[in-house]
């Protein structure tokens, strides 16, 4: 397992590097481990509250564990009227979890997101930022199979 200190430390001299460090942590773990936030506070020499404040401000950052694959469903208006709610139901049913939860095997987390900029083909979901477009409930199985 990679060392938090090493990952975060690489950004110490980068101006505004805290957010870059958090991105790097998420590339490694998919989430920001709680201890890594405290480590970041030390390395950047800022109060812990500030390190947490930054980590929790941004919806793409998550302090604490989540699944290996983060499925985000766009709920902005264009996706909403195109049937995002049906896609949500299909995903919840297929994975046996509710929005915001992670499957017991730690594989999938379901999250809402706002527009991901692929609105030419609504509704849209992303899995670890890779977009899947023009979704209908019957397409969900095949997509999830890629990740199982």
């Amino acid at each position: 397992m990679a060392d938090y200190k090493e990952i975060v430390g690489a950004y110490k001299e980068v101006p505004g590097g805290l957010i870059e460090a958090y991105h790097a942590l998420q590339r490694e773990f998919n989430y920001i481990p709680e201890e890594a936030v405290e480590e970041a506070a030390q390395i950047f020499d800022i109060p812990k509250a500030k390190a947490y404040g930054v980590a929790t401000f941004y919806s793409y950052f998550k302090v604490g564990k989540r699944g290996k694959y983060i499925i985000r469903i766009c709920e902005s208006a264009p996706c909403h009227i195109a049937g995002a709610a049906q896609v949500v139901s299909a995903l919840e049913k297929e994975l046996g979890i509710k929005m915001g939860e992670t499957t017991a095997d730690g594989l999938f987390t379901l999250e809402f997101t706002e527009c991901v900029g692929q609105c030419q083909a609504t509704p849209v979901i992303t899995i670890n930022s890779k977009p899947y477009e023009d979704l209908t409930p019957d397409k969900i199985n095949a997509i999830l199979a890629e990740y199982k």
Partner: protein
Amino acid sequence: MAEEMRILMRNYGKIDPLNIDDYINAGGYKGLEKARAMSQKDLIAEVQKSGLRGRGGAGFNAGMKWGFSYNTPADQKYVVCNADEGEPGTYKDRLIMENDPQSVLEGMAVCGYAIGSNKGYIYCRGEYPYVVEKLNTAIEQAKAKGVLGDFDIEVRMGAGAYVCGEESALIESIEGHRGEPRFKPPFPPVTGLWGKPTIVNNVETFANIPLILEKGADWFAGIGAKSYPGTKLMTLTGDVANRTFIEVPTDTTIRQVIFDFGGGIPGGKKFKAVQIGGTSGGFIPESLLDTAIDFDSMGAIGATLGSGAVFVMDESRDVVDVINQITKFFEHESCGKCSPCREGTKRMHEMVKYIYSGRGTAADLDLLERLGTVMSKACLCGLGQAAPSPVLTTLQHFKADYTAKFN
């Protein structure tokens, strides 16, 4: 039928975006060369004369903005490209960056020369990691070719906060802080990134620059609407036959955008409403469709051009359902720094939910309107100021959808 005019997208589908030689062979970097042969003052005057106004929503004259930074002496200045593209329904900056990234780099380098800056940042939204990769490749190629001279460009990635598209919040975010907007003045061109003079321009704004230099300010000023010249990239979403992008002169009307270019409403249904400029834009009814899309014409009907997103709704859509979703968006995206927005967006969504559930009365609509009016005046930044706009414009044009909910 009206024609598209591809200025920005002149290279779309014609060049390999990840091969800088293609861009150069198509005339790329001639604008920068020309710019560097001019004095900074003349260059800024030329950009100002073109009439190019910001494509990120606020519509400020780009050359005039550059002039503020040029006139502020400092040991360091910055050029920031706003690639946060957070307005739902908008994907035009992605298209530019994916299909012609060098045009953005060239525009930034011109700005760098104009104001006296050797450092640029592109703040790209976290939703676009695949765009970040392309930008980094494009930057490497430009550096290897030496076309940027001593102008350095670095990409920074956002992390899913809509408010970070607001320029001072964006600056805070690059500095590594929570993305909360700053009190203004001072404005970024004078006191921006790390307190230094900073130009923040939208991707589309920068991408317009090379051709303005190559073909001249007068050429550009002659295209489209006089007070907001050039073309605009529009992204069509919702109930429209062609969900695609178009690039049209700014004197094109909304009706032409939806019916000529967009192919009208699918399924033989009738048009009901269009929201332009993203989720913070106003709703426009049928009777106003002959308005031109330029910044000032849109403002005159209480709407906005904004990012150029065009979200079409057919007769089957329930405006209150859509507004419920939109007010939820603003509640979620409010940064919480100022109370009119922190409280206001929450209460606004609460009231709309209440009305949507059938428990509302006419008095609630009055309250909603009052709250919206207060927010548009009292909020600190554009997020809170614009958040009520969809509510207020639907109360104005689509009140029947609200009253239909009353039990």
